[in-house]
């Protein structure tokens, strides 16, 4: 059984289900069992929808029996959902005390689409509170651990979704990425994590952190799997004005076409990132070696490119994201959500509720955001940051005139230890230094396992990031698949979890 669930691609498992060689119940029970056995060590889940999943399984089995869902690539497949994506009648906390008991009366668009395709919501995964963080230590409930080393963080903020896939508690999960929150944990956990073009996947139902940067994307063990779930969740949504009507290709089909003709792409290697100070030498070596093999084994043309404005990306990000967050999080005021702190005065009720129910990192960002939007400071911070984004986009445009995709390390370092950075926000912020530029530019980017580095006898994964042109997920996925072939890391999970 484990062999099937570890080695087969998701569409193949779904195919077995559709051929009735596997029942939906068998699939769901296999993963529920794994969760029961493993999650107590990892704490990836905030809530496991055991009953709901079994009910969904029965329903989907009926549909399959009556010949429906034949075109779905994910029918019968359990999927874990980051707990900042609204799920009808299933508690959605955003990892925060202030939404501890919130039960959405509606499904996010991605959830609706997964259900329509016969996917099964199996649980809600842990995250940094309101997706603010890079280690999942900012969850108001508990930290999640990295399956490769339980002393280390899984990355964040989608640490729960990454950890769950990396330990084979699920084969697919959804995360959200604002400044790297899918790619960085994918890199830390040694799996594939895709952050699609801004607007490729509807945000309706994703609890907003920074609206102009937030994106939903999938985690999986294989590139094929993220391509297939993207196919189901992407596309125009009348409920999201920022989700345009751009056709959704059958990604895996497009990729096979490219593979068959051994399509050559031009790959830019971001010099500023590979050679940056503070990049772990071992990480750099893995990335450079894979890059060279892309040239040698696939005949891709490599070019070192420069992204000069990227050095401003982190400061820009820490103006725009908190600014939007300070407004997005204003609704959590004790009037409608959270346990209200009693008070005679309205303003005091607000202050006490918010002081007691928000965590430190959330409050820190609300402060920053409120400050940068204040009258007299708006032009100097927010407006200037917006102008800088325009320059950054121009930098990318320039590069993409010469190359098809660019690559760099996902993170400058290996997964760090729990508690190592939680007392130093600036250090924590810098762990997203390579993911933030494409976040600001709205470009599609993926983290794919490039290799492992041994530390204290434990293998630790290194992620390689591939960034593409707007809506050109196909090239990004195609190159990711090439990297997957080179590294041979796909489908690897820690030995003790097999």
């Amino acid at each position: 059984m484990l062999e099937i669930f570890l080695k087969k691609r998701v569409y193949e498992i779904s195919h077995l289900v559709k051929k009735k060689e596997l029942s939906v119940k068998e699939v769901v029970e296999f993963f529920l069992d794994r969760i029961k056995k493993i999650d107590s060590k990892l704490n990836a889940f905030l809530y496991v929808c055991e009953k709901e999943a079994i009910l969904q399984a029965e329903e989907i089995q009926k549909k399959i029996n009556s010949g429906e869902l034949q075109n779905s690539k994910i029918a019968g497949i359990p999927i874990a959902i980051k707990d900042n994506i609204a799920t009808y009648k299933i508690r959605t906390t955003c990892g925060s005390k202030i939404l501890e008991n919130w039960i959405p009366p509606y499904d996010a668009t991605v959830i609706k689409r997964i259900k329509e395709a016969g996917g099964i919501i199996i649980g809600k995964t842990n995250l940094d509170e309101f997706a603010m963080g890079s280690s999942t230590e900012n969850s108001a409930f508990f930290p999640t651990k990295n399956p490769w080393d339980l002393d280390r963080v899984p990355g964040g903020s989608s640490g729960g979704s990454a950890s769950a896939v990396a330990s084979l508690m699920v084969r697919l999960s959804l995360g959200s990425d604002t400044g790297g929150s899918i790619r960085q944990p994918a890199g830390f956990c040694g799996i594939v994590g895709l952050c699609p073009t801004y607007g490729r996947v509807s945000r309706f139902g994703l609890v907003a952190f920074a609206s102009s940067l937030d994106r939903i994307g999938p985690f999986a063990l294989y590139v094929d799997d993220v391509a297939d779930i993207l196919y189901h969740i992407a596309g125009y949504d009348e409920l999201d004005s920022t989700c345009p009507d751009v056709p959704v290709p059958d990604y895996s089909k497009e990729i096979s076409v490219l593979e068959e003709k051994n399509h050559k792409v031009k790959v830019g290697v971001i010099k500023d990132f590979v050679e940056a100070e503070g990049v772990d030498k071992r990480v750099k070596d893995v990335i450079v070696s894979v890059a060279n093999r892309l040239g040698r084994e696939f005949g891709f043309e490599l070019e070192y490119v420069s992204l000069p404005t990227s050095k401003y990306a982190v400061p820009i990000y820490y103006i725009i994201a908190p600014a939007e967050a300070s407004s997005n999080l204003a609704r959590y005021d004790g009037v409608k959500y959270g346990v209200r702190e009693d008070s005679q005065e309205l303003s005091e009720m607000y202050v006490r509720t918010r002081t007691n129910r928000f965590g430190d990192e959330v409050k820190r960002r609300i402060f920053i955001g409120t400050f940068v939007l204040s009258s007299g400071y708006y032009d100097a911070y927010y407006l200037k940051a917006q102008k800088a984004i325009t320059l950054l986009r121009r930098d990318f445009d320039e590069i993409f005139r010469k190359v098809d995709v660019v690559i760099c390390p996902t993170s400058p370092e290996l997964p760090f230890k729990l508690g190592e950075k939680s007392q130093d926000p600036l250090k924590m912020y810098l762990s997203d230094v390579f993911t933030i530029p494409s976040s600001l530019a709205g470009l599609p980017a993926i983290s794919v396992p490039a290799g492992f580095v041994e530390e204290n006898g434990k293998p630790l994964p290194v992620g390689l990031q591939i960034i593409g042109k707007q809506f050109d997920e196909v090239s990004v996925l195609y190159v990711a698949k090439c990297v997957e072939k080179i590294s041979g890391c796909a489908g690897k999970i820690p030995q003790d979890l097999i």
Partner: protein
Amino acid sequence: MTGGSVGVQDSDYELVCGLEIHIQLKTKTKLFCSCPRDSGGIPNSNICPICVGLPGVLPVLNKNALVLAVRASLLLNMQINKKSYFERKNYFYPDLPKNYQISQYRIPLAQNGYLEINSGKKIRIQRLHIEEDAGKMIHLENMSLVDFSRSGVPLVEIVTYPDISSPEEAYEFLTKLHKIMVWCDVSEGNMEEGHLRCDVNVSVKPKNSPTLGTKVEIKNVNSFRFIREAIEYEMKRQIGIIKDGGKIVQETRGYDPIAKKTFQMRTKEYAHDYRYFPEPDLLPIVVDDEIIEAARKGIYELPEEKKKKMIEKYKISEYSADVLSSERWLAEFFEELADKVENPNLLASFILEEVMRCHNEGLINIKNSEDREKVKKYVYEVIKAQEKGVITRNSAKEAFREAISQNIDIAESIGKRKVESEEDKIIKAIEDVIRENPKEVERFKKGEKKLLGFFIGEVMKKIDKKGAPKVVKEMLEKKLQE
């Protein structure tokens, strides 16, 4: 300042007044979700995840609201920005579900317009923008409740320059603004339901002084008449303070229509910093030709043009024209008939007297297109009958009322009330005389022609001598020969 000087007259000061008006747009649905705009009375019965701002939801602009806002801008002769955008106005209040209001700030939908009042004076409009309404708070003894039914209802905010220099001008401006917005279907304009709300900025300054006085804001006044009264009172109050050597405090005041006085609501207005920034969940507002065209479609001949036309073309009285142009459906009703009848004056008074009475009594509803066509036909028939002299003014009213209230065919109702013609009367009299005097007829027929004079006399008696003897004679001769 000239405060404190002795012998200063009120007329030495002048009013400087500007208005900030919120108008609810007449859309089917709310501004960013598909809830109906026009909610029933039950609190929170008209809400969805979007208009209560639940975590994760996103707004999508109602295009029709944009069309109506553009129409309002065109009606106010404004310069429309081809591209503008929404911003978030951040402040905490329980009736604001997201604790920010989606509004416009740095670039409004339209700017620099005016509305001309009766005197020919142009009151300049500074800006017009689109925004969402908030919910309502209901304060009970020891708790406050929130009703979100109104949350997300589309509004335009219109800000005038401080061009208003008398309470009367403010009244006139608002009345006209209200009339044209209702006329062109921009708003339902229901004052009781707060479809048009107005805040007034009032200050006074010595005549011809270039320096503006400290302004006081009057809020929550819900009728144009009270706004006029409030400005009047506030003007006097401020002049009084200045004359006594005092200083006007910048504050927000309310108006008590019973005491006819403004009163203090808040002093030292808490300096809000709304931290406006562009709404990232919405695309820029682009006003393209398609939107402009749709907006223009609803712009009809305005009340004043209609009135002028009625007086000039149909020669009806100014009073009638005034009333008939008070609402668009009424003006159109009149005009459609006026072109078909010979005597538009007769038509005008019939509509104003009888048709409106039946409409107000609820017997008919002329706003409803089905009723309207039927009524139009009936009115046409009775006016035609009146013009021919077939029925009198009073029986025309009776016939109309009977036809509509008892569902009788209008021709039948008119037929029952036909006035006999002179000819009919004479014939009837002649026949009577012939019947009553058989012997004389016999004699006449035998050749006693002088009896004709007797017959004429008898007939004339019967018709009260109202016919011309010559006509009676001719008709008699004809009849007697049969």
